[in-house]
């Protein structure tokens, strides 16, 4: 296998500073961030694609090894590496699906929709259809007129007030990769924190959202 140079635009710079960063490291970061962030993050399409290719390649190698009856030890070690990578990939995809199931209506109505992969969008659409049908048949059709919407409490609600939304002002644990400097936590400029490299902070997700998306802090 060749050594892997991550091609994900903004991430390539810090991979250069930290020396060797494999796709597994990147996937691990993506997994942790996704797991810790309350809302759904951008789908790491290129990274997932690369991980899939490498997994497939290793699967073939392991098969070859098994067929050759080569060293059992070698086969079992490669198999472990394979299992670990598979777990990481599955877990990443799964946590996204959980979020989609939970917030599908909210995601479908906002710009978050663009963060999903094609398959995820298809999944979300189907999921919404099924949920709509189910609620319609089991409950909504039996309610009096004016209370039959899946999105609104009653017809008098001005906005959709029955859509579960991720709670963005929750607190998250995050680790800084490099110095961010004085960072403003709110709009009024009253709360300023000096973010130093490689330190652990508990901050409101809303205020560090930008830093997470830019890859400057990692959620843990």
């Amino acid at each position: 296998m060749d050594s892997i140079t991550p091609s994900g635009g903004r991430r390539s710079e810090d991979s250069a500073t930290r020396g060797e960063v494999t796709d597994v490291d990147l996937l691990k970061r993506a997994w942790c961030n996704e797991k810790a962030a309350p809302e759904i993050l951008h789908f790491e399409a290129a990274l997932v694609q690369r991980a899939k290719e490498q997994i497939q390649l290793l699967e073939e190698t392991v098969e070859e090894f098994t067929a050759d009856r080569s060293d059992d030890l070698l086969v079992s070690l490669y198999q472990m590496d394979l299992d670990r990578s598979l777990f990481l990939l599955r877990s990443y995809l799964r946590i996204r699906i959980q979020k989609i199931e939970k917030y599908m209506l909210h995601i479908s109505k906002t710009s978050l929709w663009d963060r999903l992969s094609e398959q995820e969008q298809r999944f979300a659409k189907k999921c919404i259809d099924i949920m709509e049908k189910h609620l319609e048949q089991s409950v909504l059709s039996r309610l009096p007129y004016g209370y039959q919407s899946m999105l609104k409490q009653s017809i008098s609600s001005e906005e959709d007030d029955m859509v579960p939304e991720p709670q963005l002002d929750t607190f998250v644990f995050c680790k800084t990769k490099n110095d961010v400097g004085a960072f403003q936590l709110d709009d009024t400029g009253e709360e300023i924190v000096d973010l130093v490299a490689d330190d652990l902070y508990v901050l409101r997700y809303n205020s560090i959202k930008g830093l997470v998306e830019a890859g400057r802090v990692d959620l843990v």
Partner: protein
Amino acid sequence: MAGQSDSHLLSFSAPEVEFLAEDELVEIIPNLRMDALNMICGDFGPFFPQIATKVPLWLAVALKKRGKCSFRPPEWMSVERLTQVLEAERESPREFQPLPFHYVEISKLLIDNGHEDIPDIYMVRSLIEDIRDVRFHKVETGLETISGRTHAVKLKNLSAMEVNIVRPFMVRALQAFYKLDSPEMIQQPEATVNRRPRVIDRGPRVSLQIRPFSLYYVSMLLSDYCHFNFISI
């Protein structure tokens, strides 16, 4: 109410944290000859008998279980260093000593799998347990100082497992304080009654009239009571 609904999504399980720790590099001394391993998670080896090399912890444990290597415990896992750390932990009640982010998991896996490779293993184990206890006690006393004015908490050198243990409680405590402290909550009760609370996850929609009043007083009491912040900031 909403904090609860998110909790299963937002938390790592202990095995998951251990999984993350298993990618940390440790030194082993192989007793076999083996070509380099080109794995998805990186290239390791080649391996020569008696020549130390660095591999991820999971690989080290796998080789150890098959009797193919011995561990070389990291420097921080010596009795001498751990005694120093423990003393320093006891002396500074508001600071955590620098230890590897995954020190709990690394030391556990090394101790469980490599009895004969770690000198003074019983001493090392009990020192690490003591350090964990002292540190956790600090975390607990630190939690008492969280208040409505805590908008950020800095936890320098807190380790992964410690983060994981304290996360659910800490996040919900901060969230509760944040909510109570927000201007929406503290404004005049008459104005609040007309506001419809943001609906999150089909929360209970009863007793709209009563809640703003009681929260208002609670938040007043709390912000009077604790006005010093947790660990700097």
